[in-house]
């Protein structure tokens, strides 16, 4: 068993657990203000200092993991599942449906991603859920492409023909034979996407199109803390490093999963 894979998986799960149980891990209430504590430098009590409102940065980073990590994972899950379903159906059945759907996905691929996400976010207004929707709308076609091409290659194999002859329904074939065989490449694609998606989501928040204050989200925390870079650097660097470390962990995991499944 690959040691790297185990280590990175543990790290990634640790992050996710932090995000899920954030409330119980915060040493302070991340939203409680105490102006007397405004801009305290990092200390033993406040590991990452406090912000303008005297809120504990460490607690805010932890609670921010929820908005940042869980919404990223939700986003990746949505596009993976939706993209795969569409791709498999197109690949398996082919025909008119296939060509229509593929034209649509061509169309989405024809748009420069972030430009379109900006537009959708502008249309929907701010908010973390809207940011997730905006990115989901532009990102699913990639998955349907992968799923479709994988389905096409698996479909041609003899055991599928055998299953067909044995009288399996298309749904059975897809679930029993096709999905298990194409899951690898799709998993790799989505694992590698987590880091990118996290950065794009934070980018939208940074522009004010994602999470709204006072919700602690790393991208918007950085955006709000920008002016403190020189005077109170911990306010902006803490969320910056939180994003960086999470992206590193998910990227390492993604790379390792790819190397395991696709040793080339």
């Amino acid at each position, binding site marked *: 068993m690959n040691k790297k894979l185990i280590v990175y998986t543990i790290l990634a799960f640790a992050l996710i657990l932090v995000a899920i149980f954030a409330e119980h891990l915060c040493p302070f209430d991340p*939203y*409680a*203000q105490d*102006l*007397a504590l*405004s801009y305290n430098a990092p200390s033993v009590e406040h590991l990452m200092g406090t912000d*303008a*409102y*005297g809120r504990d940065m460490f607690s805010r980073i932890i609670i921010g993991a929820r908005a940042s990590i869980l919404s990223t994972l939700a986003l990746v899950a949505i596009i993976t599942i939706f993209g795969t379903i569409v791709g498999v159906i197109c690949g398996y059945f082919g025909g008119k449906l296939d060509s229509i759907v593929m034209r649509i996905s061509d169309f989405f691929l024809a748009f420069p991603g972030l430009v379109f996400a900006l537009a959708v976010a502008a249309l929907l207004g*701010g908010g973390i859920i809207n940011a997730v929707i905006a990115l989901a709308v532009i990102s699913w076609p990639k998955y349907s492409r992968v799923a479709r091409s994988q389905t096409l290659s698996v479909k041609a194999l003899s055991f599928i023909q055998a299953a067909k002859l044995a009288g399996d329904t298309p749904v059975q074939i897809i679930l029993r034979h096709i999905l298990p065989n194409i899951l690898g490449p799709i998993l790799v694609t989505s694992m590698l996407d987590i880091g990118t998606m996290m950065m794009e989501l934070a980018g939208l928040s940074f522009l*004010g199109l994602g999470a*709204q*204050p*006072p919700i602690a989200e790393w991208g918007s925390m950085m955006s*709000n803390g*920008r*002016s*403190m*870079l*020189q*005077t*109170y650097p911990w306010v902006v660097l803490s969320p910056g490093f939180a994003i960086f470390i999470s992206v590193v962990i998910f990227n390492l995991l993604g790379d390792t999963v790819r190397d395991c499944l696709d040793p080339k």
Partner: protein
Amino acid sequence: MKGLKKSVAFVMAMALTMATFTGCGAKSETATSQSEVSSDAKKTFTFGDTTFNAENEEANIDPHDTYCGWACIRYGIGETLFKFNDNMELEPWVAESFENVDELTWKIVIKDGVTFSNGKAVDAAAVKACIEDLVAVHERAAGDLAIDTIEADGQTLTIKTQTPKPTLMNYLCDPYGCVIDVEEGNADGIVVGTGPFVCTELVTSDHLNLVKNENYWNGEVKIDEAKVITISDGDTLALALQNGDIDAAYGMAYANYPLFENDEYTFTGTPTSRAFFCQMNYNSPVIKDDVVRKALAMGIDKEGFVNTLLNGYGYVGVGAFPDNFSFGGDVVTTESYDPEKAKTLLEEAGWVDTDGDGIREKDGQTLTIRWISYPSRQELPLLAESAQATLKDIGFDIQLNVTADHGTIVAEKDTWDVYAAAFVTCGIGDPMYFFTTHCLDDSSKNRGGYHSDEIQALADEMNATFDAGARGDIAVKMQQQILDDNAFIFCSFLRMSMITKANVTGLVAHPSDYYEFTADLDIN
């Protein structure tokens, strides 16, 4: 193997060369631009400003267009008939005197020798043309001035109003009253005024290029060229000033002030009547409850907001006007920050947290307040987040929506509860301005449908009063009334600050927040 090393060496050399090449290119560029500055004797002043943009209704410098007059007067392009002194009283400027002949008639004498920057002399006819254009095109001027007829005779201008207008002269000194040569038109939003600077190029929300007015009537202009750069981000503004890209800055983020509290920079600051205040929406059932408004007023930590979040660069607000006005400061009283009392009040009124989520409810209605504000004034998001936390402690659920799109939201009656905004309450030196714009039944900014019989009556009284002292007394009563109703909460007043490099002189903050660039502006 030898070949491999060679090729790698070559690749690296190539990369290095390219990197050095780009690096050198960059360096030589800086070198030349620096030598240009030193060899050239021209004095160029660069000013970074957060406000000169379309979002702020300052898309250009034509005073007859929305709030563009602010840019016109601030950057020394236009001048008004009279100018406010530090006590916000009128002093001669383009005009030398005025006389209030009767309730409806005003005689203004224009100074001899004042010229537009194109060299043309300013006479009463030119001012008449300017005011007529203003009234015809400007959204607020016609109502403010209520002009019936204007007569021009040599340097004497006679204005008759439709109704008695005690504050006519003050209104004419609003930035929209800049005297411009209307015959020159306003192509690209550029106008010709009488000020020390002439605009040569204007790009909305980006920059404004100015040159010295060679014909300036009021002394020699010390700076040859000035450039105003719009930097909407307070943080970039700080970096630009530190880096030397700009010589002075307006609108610096408070968090960056400590960076400039040293010998290399000069602060110029003054209290202004720009109030940061909350306006209540009486169309909202929750807000209609007197106790809720009172509790809101008790739940905002004004002291903490000013002293901590604004680094002390501000003044705690009580009524609509700051301390430096005779009718301002603590001549009125209002609720102070008292969360415990607010809790008791709410409790007694039946607002109780029954489901234990920390938010109070009454008759199935939760104590949710939709707080609308906007980010272009950096104080407002700080106020919003601060108030959200202190009010939550009392049992309010404050839902923030701090957006540049605030206008659309508050234009609807039922989409908001509290609107936090910034407004210059006494921009023309007279207290009536705020009440006319915000508190009367027909006020354009009475967004929350506030109505008070007392205020309506007092306003009528004020409109018929010409004596400044008596007007001040009425203003105190009116403030007390809106504070007793808790229709407005005045949180703080802006300490208007500009930060300049130490070698800049002549840039002085003015209580009106209008005058910035003058002939005295200089770089040593």
